[in-house]
């Protein structure tokens, strides 16, 4: 396991993401959050995780933990194909911008989000948006659930194999021991 950015040149500054070394960490972060929101990019429907896609895990987690879901890019289509309706459809930078506004009342209008979980965005796009949140959303924690290290998140997996990733996602879902 390493703590290098997945794309080797994307070196972050002094403040770098803590590693999710075991799934309980991410699980605890999500359980502890009062107003979590999922930000799900187009690659979530492309990544094969054995019989499933990343988006299938996102849907399961969103349902289990009652997490609001924002579909970016054209991911909405993929959610709808799976019988799941996201809470909002908007560009990734638009939701990122709103999350820096501490007065924004969130996707459902019921209060500011305290945790943003990122999955399936193009690597550098997630990198830069997470950098924006790191610097300008001090009350927000962020988690990257991709299998590559995102240094600008609050918490991120390291660069892990697909197999390890699946084990972690299953464990977060409570389907398997972590």
């Amino acid at each position, binding site marked *: 396991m390493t703590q290098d950015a997945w794309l080797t040149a994307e070196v972050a500054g002094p403040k770098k993401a803590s590693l999710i070394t075991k799934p309980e960490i991410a699980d605890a972060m999500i359980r502890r959050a009062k107003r979590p929101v999922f930000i799900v990019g187009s690659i979530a429907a492309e990544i094969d995780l054995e019989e499933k896609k990343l988006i299938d895990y996102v849907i399961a987690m969103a349902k289990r933990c009652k997490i609001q879901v924002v579909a970016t890019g054209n991911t909405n289509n993929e959610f709808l194909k799976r019988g799941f309706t996201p809470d909002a459809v908007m560009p990734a930078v638009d939701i*990122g911008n709103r999350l820096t506004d501490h007065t924004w009342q969130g996707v459902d209008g019921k209060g500011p989000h305290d945790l943003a979980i990122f999955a399936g965005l193009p690597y*550098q796009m997630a990198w*830069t948006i997470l950098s924006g949140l790191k610097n300008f959303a001090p009350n927000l924690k962020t988690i990257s659930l991709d299998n590559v290290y995102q240094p600008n998140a609050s918490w991120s997996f390291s660069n892990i194999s697909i197999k390890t990733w699946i084990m972690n996602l299953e464990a977060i879902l409570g389907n398997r021991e972590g």
Partner: protein
Amino acid sequence: MGTKEINISIKEIETEIGNIKDLRFSVGRLAQETWDEPQGPTPFPSMTALRNWDLTLLNRYKPFYLPFCDLCCLCTFGKCDLTGDKKGACGITMPGQQSRIVLLAACIGAATHTSHARELVTHLIEEFGSDTRLDPGGLNIKVEAPITRLVCGMKPETLGDLETVLDYSEQQITSLLACTHTGQEGNPLDLESKVLHTGMIDHLSMEVADIAQVSAYDLPKADPNAPLVDIGFGSVDTTKPVILVIGHNVPPSVEIMDYMQDNELTGDIEVTGICCTGIDMTRYSPKAKIIGPISWQIRYIRSGIPDIIVVDEQCIRTDVLDEARVLKIPVIATSGKNCLGLTDRTGDPPDEIIDDLVSGTIDGALILDPEKVGVVAVKTAMEIAPRRKKDKKGIFLSHEEAIELAKQCTQCRECRRACPNDMHISDAIKAFSREDPAMLAEIYDSCVGCIRCESACSEEIPIHSLIVAAGEDTLRNEAFRLRAGRGAIQDIEIRQVGGPIVLGEIPGIVAFVGCANYPKGGNELAEMAIEFANRRFITCTSGCAAMTIGMYKNEDGKSPYEIYPGNFEAGAIVNVGSCVSNAHISGAAVKIASIFARRNLRGNYAEIADYVYNRVGAVGVAWGAMSQKAASIAAGFWRLGIPVIVGPHGTKYRRMLLGRADHDEDWYVEDARTNEKVYVGPVPEHLFISVETKEEAMVMIAKLSMRPNDTSRGRALKLTHYIDLHRRLLGSMPTDIHRFVRMEADIPITMKEDIVAILQEKDWKETVIPDPTLIPKKEVVQ
């Protein structure tokens, strides 16, 4: 405007006050006024003259910063950690630093176009004389330089007049660059205002460059039927000597073609170009051929097909000499801005230089005289080609060689981690080593040709050459047709479309511009252009984007330029030309205000920008934007109130300019008829936004084409496109329709039932269509 420099010299004169000897004085330039339009409030604006307008825009579209680096390392106090609310040693904040870097990037871009324009104008004045008349469109164009008229308040008539414009641009860029010094401007919004000023200067200089070259070189003059020219690797006759020119500044290429013409060699040699020099060469002579955008440099050089490489300026790989040296292809550098470490041979006789290049005594030469470049390039290519073709130098790998190299891969995945598009290169190489080229060939289609994969490879596998080997069939069959850059838009075309655009009945003008750093290959861009041409948008393009659109074929083997007309009209695909021709797209928006709406242009920037912003549904798309020039071009569109969409790599420009649709208070305009504030909805919702996928981009284009001034008929049409694309590409009805419907007549008739249900759910209330302006009446100077 005609201008004259007055220089007076008096050897000796006796006057009442005494005897004066050797008196000399000069008056610089005197304007001979031939334009009776009244001067507006801001001719030759200083960098603060339009600050109020900028802040009006920036109040709606606040920066969302995406720091690409947490540190500042620009002075020896640093590095300074600016994370969160920390400040640097000079006191700068993270927002200030991000805007500062954006300003730096924009200054680099504007300086590049301005320097390009200056070299071009100086050269053309030397060659043709400063009194050479500007003629960008013959009888079809009376507003010859809309940006110059708007910004400078002057009407240029000759090449010499353009020097005055460039004097102003250079002065402004110097001041703007000075603002980025340590301990200078640190307020983020003031820095952003200066970014917009830089963008305006950039468009000014681009206009100068293009109208100068169109006039002097007789490039297509606002010609919608400019000839179709060849583009693509497969269009080159490799049995002939081949010259490759890379860059943007066309005089050396022109001299090459002139020399061939003068010596009856035109049919004997292939002149090929990469990047905007390629585009401008084909505007000069349709016999020239374009290979492709910037990303084709390595694959074309490594093919060994070029017998000589001539580089001018901008977007040229800095390792071009290294690549050429491997294949013993001589290189001629022609610009003081890009000397490549070569010996300056400008003063040497051509035959001596040719002998040295042909014999291989030297790898290349710096020749700062375009005419001499013409002679040397042509003669060298002719002498060297027979030997090179016999040797068949080139590193197109054979299938067997490529597979043997692929077998050396250790699957460390460092190539993938170096790839800007995170492509699964090592998996593809593994499959290739097992005789399955499909995955690697797929990577060929998306590869941006940066060869960072090769730099990262510990086994020194020439990965890009492997990719090209897998995609060789595709490469060799790249032969398409592109309509040569037409230049400006005719006044009559503006008259014909001005009304329908302003009323919203032509759904929009969409401009696909910028570089080739595409996330998933170029076909996506061509598909977008075709979609919007089919939707009867006026679809414009330029530069690398124009080439990319041309490198696409439908089932009948035709490129978009063979199918869609080149007129500035609904349903067309309009290639204006190279990077500097972008000024004709912003110029067209300005001309709508001038020619259709009869607003005074002269030195009247804020009023015209307010007009364009509220009425002209134009959207820029820089899907593969990469460069600093792209940054300054975008900034020039922003200041005119024209939104720009970039692809996913665009977040690396460090900040977006985003509106907040949910903040109703942001979306009021003044109704110029009643002076009342009227809610008009978030139109256009964003000024600069990066989107993730082609599908999202297409929905965003339709959305950002809405303007407050749309008639109900126009708004219904624009909503139809927005809703239809949202449904088709994103899978559902958009949830923000209520923000764009002002009255029931705005609702598209075929969607009425669905939309009315949404409006009821959202507690929608009818409003009015104002005569919209963001500038309070007292500020407008008539």
